[in-house]
């Protein structure tokens, strides 16, 4: 059970070469901007193709360069939420959520929408357009839309970084609750050290020079694998980095 990632990709400026796997837990993907965190999620979601490697979810192969498997984004069982708002601006919150339910029988739709509206506390906002929502509400609506497909993992690419601090604190709680309620692996990309330490069941640290270390926040803090990772995990400067 869980998500196994083993991919390599050469991009202008850096080479991504990472291997990690997680179970039904909240994994924080942490590292400097430009260390390939977002690229990893895009590769998982199928929006970007690794040069080589393998991705599988619950034993199902989604990408395998050796066997020439590369599932289209539509056929990957993930919920993907990014920092910016990707709610469709011309659809209400409810229609945005229902949009993800193609192929689901009409009578099941109502209950599935009701479940995510309840989980993300969107009551009363169903008929609003995204432009009429506050930042935190938008992110909750995006989470609801991602969850309604009953994904087998949730990929969150810095979902809070555009939010004000109080809302961000509230959203961290929301994501924790979602992780517990839906019992699925969550990969949360962040470059906020505090967020990483407080939220992670498990941390995946990208050092920026190709090293990856995986472990609980406590383990990583006590025994960082390289001096670079140690700097990354202790540096105050991090809070000020973009």
């Amino acid at each position, binding site marked *: 059970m869980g998500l196994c990632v083993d991919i390599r990709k050469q991009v202008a400026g850096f080479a991504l070469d990472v291997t990690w796997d997680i179970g039904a837990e909240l994994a924080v993907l942490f590292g400097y901007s430009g260390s390939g965190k977002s690229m990893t999620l895009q590769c998982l*979601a*199928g*929006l970007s193709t690794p040069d080589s490697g393998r991705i599988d979810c619950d034993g199902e192969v989604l990408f395998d360069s050796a066997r020439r498997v590369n599932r*289209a*984004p*539509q*056929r*990957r069982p*993930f*919920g*993907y939420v*990014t920092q*910016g708002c*990707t709610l*469709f*601006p*011309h659809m209400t919150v409810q229609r945005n959520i229902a*949009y*993800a339910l*193609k*192929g689901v029988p009409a009578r099941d739709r109502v209950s599935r929408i009701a479940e995510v509206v309840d989980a993300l506390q969107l009551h009363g906002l169903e008929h609003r*357009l*995204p*432009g009429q929502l506050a930042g935190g509400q938008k992110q909750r609506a995006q989470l609801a*839309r*991602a969850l309604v*497909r009953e994904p087998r993992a949730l990929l969150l690419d810095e979902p809070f970084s555009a939010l004000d601090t109080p809302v961000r604190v509230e959203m961290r709680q929301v994501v924790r609750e979602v992780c517990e309620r839906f019992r699925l692996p969550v990969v949360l990309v962040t470059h906020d050290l505090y967020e990483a330490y407080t939220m992670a069941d498990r941390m995946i640290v990208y050092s920026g020079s190709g090293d990856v270390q995986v472990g609980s926040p406590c383990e990583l803090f006590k025994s960082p694998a390289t001096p670079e990772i140690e700097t990354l995990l202790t540096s105050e400067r991090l809070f000020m980095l973009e």
Partner: protein
Amino acid sequence: MSAELIFPFRLSLQVAAVATCMTAVVGITVAYVLARYEFRGKELLDLITTLPMVLPPVVTGYYLLVVLGRNGALSGALERTIGVRLNITFTWWAAVIAAFVVSLPLTVKTVRAAIESVDPALVSASHTLGRSEFDTAIHVVLPLARRGIIAGLILSFARALGEFGATIMIAGNISGRTNTAPLEIYNAVVYGDWNTAFTIVLAFTLLSGAMILAANRVAKVRGW
């Protein structure tokens, strides 16, 4: 307006309406493909759909005659292969084709720009929500580009309504059959009937002005 002016105006409206329907189907499809895909021959497709905007309409009309004329390239090929004799020159359908070809670039350009301005993150989001490229086009991209689409079609309609050069080449100037309103202006001037010419010119000026305003209005309306 006198009775003999009703026919040219009705014909022009009819030609422009049919041509705009064709533009809607072909123009939006071409614009979508140009905006969203990279492929060999993309530049050529762009060139072919833009040329009629730049070429003198008479030149476009000449090409149309060469392709669709009685002994034209397409007509000849159709007759040789499936035995159908294409006989549309000097009918009102020829006027429709002239209006369509000449007005197509306006829709392609406007719609392409509108589609390119749709946030690619929304397209990716739609894909990760399990929706196909076609679903995404119908439910996300085209609705978000709808102002550009409407503006483009209004401009194309106005252009089709006033088409002269290509029309006279392939549809001729047959009274009671292919004398669209712009041709009728020419006829009136040739016969020294300045009052009639002025009436049609005035009608065109007002109509075209109104359509430009409408297109601008559509492009500017705020929402979402």
